[in-house]
């Protein structure tokens, strides 16, 4: 009996079961498709919110950074997370929360500030922000900031752009006023050279301050001023310090700070290429990936490297680990090279 006639002669119920089983089998043989890689900024944001809901703060940070890379404007519009669950697009606020829960108060505060300055946080997050912000300020020994000015009635909360189908606006020039955070006197200032990358972390360079000296680094016991101790790597050309132990730490921090600043710059450049690629891919509905899956793998690898560099930089700054910061710099450079190469291969110019 041929297969076809077997099917014809099979009882109706058996035919239906064979049909159902076949569908499952087809799906089974296609199950090597890897998990979904969300592509649009809405999807990245939704994944970030889901991770937040479940307390997966590292995942939340990664997804929110992706969303910010693709759409740096905190438009405050509501984004569907799943079903009928919506969240306003205030990614800097949620990124701040994710960083706060990972113990990175410095960057959490920067993102809270940015969110406040964008205005959108006032719609839904101000009260939620108070607790973590207060804790961070206490932790860092920063005096409470004055209450923020009320958001303008029609301001950045409802900026246009960023809707699916319309590519998000290109990243603004580094010193554009509307994206530069109003740095409070109590917070370390952002680095001047090159400005901040509005599409990536918007992190101030960690400058040594009295507060972080007090909270993060335990100074060694005071020594007599006549016997200054010198740490490894301390520049020899330093003038004799009036209070040597603190100054040694200052010097270390200065080197770390300068290196971190370089890494920030490298991250900014890599982030620009990533943003350019993302906008192109969104516009073309990821046609290049469909044509060449290898391209997608390279893109994802570069993205992972970029995120890893950011994470390493944060950790390095937090722990005062210069090696980690240096390593983050080389990762950021590698990511930038690969992203730039990909962009050129896709005809996006130099």
């Amino acid at each position, binding site marked *: 009996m041929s297969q076809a006639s077997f099917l014809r002669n099979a009882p109706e119920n058996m035919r239906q079961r064979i049909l159902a089983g076949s569908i499952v089998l087809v799906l089974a043989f296609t199950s090597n498709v890897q998990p979904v890689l969300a592509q649009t900024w809405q999807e990245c944001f939704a994944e970030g919110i889901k991770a937040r809901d479940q307390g997966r703060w590292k995942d939340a940070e990664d997804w929110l950074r992706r969303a910010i890379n693709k759409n740096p404007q905190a438009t405050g519009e509501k984004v569907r997370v*799943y*079903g009928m669950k919506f969240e306003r697009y205030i990614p800097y606020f949620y990124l701040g929360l994710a960083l706060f829960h990972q113990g990175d108060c410095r960057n959490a505060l920067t993102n809270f500030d940015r969110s406040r300055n964008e205005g959108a946080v006032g719609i839904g997050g101000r009260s939620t922000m108070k607790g973590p912000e207060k804790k961070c300020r206490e932790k860092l020994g920063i005096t409470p900031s004055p209450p923020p000015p009320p958001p303008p009635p029609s301001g950045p909360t409802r900026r246009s752009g960023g809707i699916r189908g319309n590519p998000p606006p290109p990243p603004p020039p580094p010193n554009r006023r509307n994206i530069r955070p109003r740095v409070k006197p109590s917070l370390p200032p952002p680095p001047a050279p090159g400005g901040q990358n509005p599409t990536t972390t918007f992190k101030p360079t960690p400058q040594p301050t009295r507060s972080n000296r007090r909270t993060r680094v335990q100074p060694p016991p005071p020594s007599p001023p006549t016997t200054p101790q010198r740490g490894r790597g301390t520049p020899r050309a330093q003038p004799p310090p009036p209070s040597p132990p603190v100054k040694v730490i200052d010097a270390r921090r200065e080197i770390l700070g300068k290196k971190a600043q370089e890494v920030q710059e490298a991250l900014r450049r890599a982030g620009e290429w990533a943003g350019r690629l993302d906008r192109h891919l969104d516009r073309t509905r990821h046609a290049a990936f469909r044509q060449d899956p290898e391209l997608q793998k390279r893109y994802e690898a570069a993205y992972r490297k970029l995120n890893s560099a950011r994470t390493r930089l944060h950790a390095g700054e937090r722990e005062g680990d210069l090696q980690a910061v240096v390593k983050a710099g080389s990762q950021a450079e590698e990511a930038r090279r690969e992203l730039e190469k990909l962009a050129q291969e896709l005809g996006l110019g130099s």
Partner: protein
Amino acid sequence: MNMGTRNRTALMILALVVVSASGAHAQSDDDSNGAVQFNFSTPGARSLGLGGAFLGSVDDATAAYSNPAGLLQLSEPEAMVEFRQWSYSTPFASRGRFSGTATGFGADDLSTIEFDTSDEDLEDISYASFVYPRQNWAIAFYYHQAAKFRSQFQTAGIFTRTSRLFPVQSSYDLDISQVGVSFAHKWGGFAVGYGASIYSLELDSLTQRFRTSSSFAAVDFDNDLRINYQTQTGESEELGYLVGLRWDSSVNSKTSIGLVYRFGPEFDIDVASAAGMPSSQSPMGEPAVFNLPDVLGLGFTFRPSPALTVSFDIDQVRYSQMVEDFFIIFRGDSTDPEDFVIDDVTEYHFGVEYVFANNVIPVALRVGGWWDPDHRLRFEGSSDANQARLFKGEDELHYSAGLGLVITSKFQIDLAADFSENADTAAVSAIYRF
């Protein structure tokens, strides 16, 4: 064994389970069994507004029953309750002539069958669930009303070429509910879900037949004229199962596909037929089986823009399981049980949802429809009498519309209604996220 091979092996086992799902036994040829309605549509007012096209989306607490694989989409614990109202209009042949020519004497004054409907309005809590999701797994507990159906009718005794059927007075009352637990986890590129539930059946039907004073006389439902009666009764609990899969497009999550198979249980019932009046001395019923049909569903969801969702489901309901090993209720009746037929049907569901997300209260508007092919119990043998009692019905098109309101970020309310020739359904459901 690598991950991909493991996934394939497991899914092949799942396929074999589906293929080897066993059949079940049947109910009887009692007149009241002609047009039983079940509640196989996916629960929730949101789903009802989408014409029941929800197997691809399943992104709320209804996933526990609809397709447990969808539970993984939730990121917060969620509780849901739904209230439904059903209005059934069950057609029956009330009077007239099935075959031959009307004589014009007395009640034999129609040359065709005249149909009437049994109209019943019912309402109940139709669904409640609680979902606890984590990153790679989720568990849910639920209650679902699988059937709530009533019908009551009286016939005037249909005439056939050679005889007149006894006038009938019939009532039918069916309740099937279930409490279950569902579990979902990730499996490579898929979400996979399983569920088990305890179904509870309560069935109570009584069909009484009356003689008339003469062949053409009008009907008088007097106890003294009662000829015989048939009952179907049952109160039993059985286990049922469901398995589901869900897959998102790997390029982006604009497209998703859901597949589910629900295994309906077999319930033990008692069926009796006796002369005279039903009383406490009524004869013991004979054991029979009431089979809740299995359902296979495949759903596609496409989201062309963040605000717009288009869904399409194909559901196969295996009503034919209800007539396997069919029970002939009249003792001594030599009718071939194979002549009693209910076809398996394929339902097509379609729905569209548009969300105005940036309103102060986000609002979702939904419309949908679905094709509900005839699934009446019918007789395909040569007996005029049985053909007149159990006849083929008509396919129906359902239209639905609904509204969703996200009152707060934690609380939403959905309203919907579904209309068709013989069954209207209205629903309101509320979801709270913790």
